[in-house]
């Protein structure tokens, strides 16, 4: 669908809605959704052009939370950026930490002890459970199910956050990984608490799915909405559950086999249609696989040191070199590109933000759907603005 571009935004201060006359479509309505809108998951704005209720053009606008994370990273020591990575995707600080620690370990050629690798897998999978549970709650909230599914999700999330707090001292800003291991060992009884949570999580998912998966309203609102083709998904650099919902088997835990993932037995769920329902369903199935990984990891975790004894935290200066390293975060591929010139700070510190790149296809998914569906589609992409804007 193409039409002459209606003149740029209304010049009137504070104007957010205005009518545009177009010879072919008649009257179009330009709506500025956001930045303060409950469905945009933060300060995110969509410039939507509507023909009746149908979206004919959509341009995402962001940068409201921009604080130039990368520049700050270049002016800070390597370790100094570690707590700051928590603030990227503030729901998944453990995987952000791991992605950064892994990149620096590759840059400096460091090894990680076995127990630390197991702890990293356990924490990453707990983060995945946490993120996907919350996302299912947010998605239902966007569909109009006010409160109830989100409260169920947040009840479970709080149990995982309790585990994070007892391990790292902080619920969300964990700052837990270090180059060459982890900061502290799990306290007495922590692994048992994690086992108890993992064993009970399946029954929570059963309960949650009994409420949602077969729900008529959810199916009507999500099936056939926002279909993403596999070809576009790969070309647009979409990663994570979105890519797998489009039917592309590309999970970095299998492809790159970083950490100890090759030791665990798990499957990669794939979608068949690439619509919003598939994106929801892939995440639910991923949670079930995460539980399997957690059970194996909690069964096999050995005793031993959690930090490489040769690792140097203070006065850490990696040799000149460059690295790009990535892991499978709950939202997609989170990567770090670091260039070292031998100094205490990285010369270049770049974060590959999965949320930002997954937004590339937002307009393609929304065209031709109603404005209410655009809200649900945005919810199914799963963005966190701390990471989009950096």
């Amino acid at each position: 669908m193409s039409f002459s571009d209606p003149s740029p935004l209304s010049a009137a201060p504070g104007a957010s809605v205005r009518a545009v006359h177009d010879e072919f479509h008649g009257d179009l309505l330009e709506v500025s959704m956001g930045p303060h809108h409950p469905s945009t998951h933060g300060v995110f704005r969509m410039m939507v052009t509507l023909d009746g209720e149908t979206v004919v053009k959509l341009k995402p606008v962001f940068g409201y939370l921009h604080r130039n994370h990368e520049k700050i990273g270049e002016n800070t020591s390597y370790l100094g950026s570690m707590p700051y990575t928590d603030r990227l995707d503030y729901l998944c600080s453990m995987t952000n930490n791991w992605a950064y620690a892994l990149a620096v370990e590759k840059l400096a050629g460091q090894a990680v002890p076995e127990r630390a690798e197991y702890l990293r897998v356990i924490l990453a999978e707990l983060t995945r459970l946490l993120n996907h549970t919350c996302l299912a709650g947010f998605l239902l909230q966007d569909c109009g199910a006010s409160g109830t599914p989100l409260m169920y999700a947040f009840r479970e999330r709080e149990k995982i956050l309790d585990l994070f707090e007892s391990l790292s001292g902080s619920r969300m800003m964990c700052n837990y990984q270090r180059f060459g291991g982890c900061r502290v060992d799990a306290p007495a009884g922590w692994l048992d608490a994690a086992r108890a949570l993992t064993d009970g999580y399946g029954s929570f998912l059963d309960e949650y799915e009994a409420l949602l998966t077969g729900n008529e309203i959810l199916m009507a609102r999500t099936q056939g909405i926002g279909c993403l083709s596999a070809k576009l998904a790969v070309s647009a650099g979409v990663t994570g559950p979105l890519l797998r919902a489009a039917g592309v088997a590309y999970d970095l835990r299998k492809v790159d086999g970083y950490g100890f993932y090759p030791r665990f037995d798990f499957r990669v769920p794939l979608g068949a249609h690439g619509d919003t329902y598939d994106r929801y369903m892939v995440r639910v199935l991923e949670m079930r696989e995460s539980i399997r990984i957690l059970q194996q990891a909690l069964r096999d975790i050995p005793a031993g040191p959690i930090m490489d004894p040769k690792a140097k935290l203070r006065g850490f200066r990696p040799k000149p070199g460059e690295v790009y390293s990535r892991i499978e975060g709950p939202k997609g591929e989170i990567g770090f590109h670091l260039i070292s010139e031998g100094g205490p700070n990285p010369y270049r510190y770049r974060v590959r933000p999965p949320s930002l790149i997954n937004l590339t296809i937002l307009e393609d998914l929304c065209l031709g759907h109603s404005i209410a569906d655009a809200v649900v589609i945005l919810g199914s992409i799963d963005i966190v603005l701390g990471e989009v804007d950096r």
Partner: protein
Amino acid sequence: METPDQIRDRLLSRFPGAAVSLISNPGPAAQHSLLLDAADARAIATFLRDDPGLQLDFCSNVTGVDWPDREIVETTRTSTPDPAGGPAKVVEQKTKRLQPGCLEVVYHLYSVALLHGPVVLRLRTGNRSDQVSLPSLTPVWRACEFQEREVFDLFGVVFEGHPDLRRILMWDGFKDHPMRKDYVEPDDYEWEPTPHGDVLAKAKRHYPTPAPAVVKEEPKP
């Protein structure tokens, strides 16, 4: 997967006349990269995407690197033997050389079809002031769309052929490019009602001290 050497040789035989050189990475990760000529970059990128042996269909990461002008001091030592048989006389001579700076754009490519990667591509601008345009690779990989906008916004590289090249993180009226190494933030960037420390110094620099207010004497009745 082919090594970067093999890819370069194949590119050179496929595109005679193109300048493709290998940049080695001394770090333990050893991710070597290919430096492409701006003129042939899009043709080479399309070839890398479509070649059945490589199928680099997934452009994961696009980023910029700023390399300012550098003064490189080279020391040359010349030793002249002492005719009397004593220790040789060593003369050190220092020569200064200016290495011109550039802006660099780095692309990390993977293959979803063949599950390999990364292949790292680099493009360099002529300088950092007036020759800053490079061909956009968005027509080849859609994933570059937002990331090239970000490089344009934060580094100031102008991508020719980009469908929608606007600022993405900074606001539209913003002038400078904050990720450049020589970026200086404006004095009035940070405003505080009760400034102290660095912010106070900046506020003083930016807002000159106001002249003392002239009090008018009102005529007494």
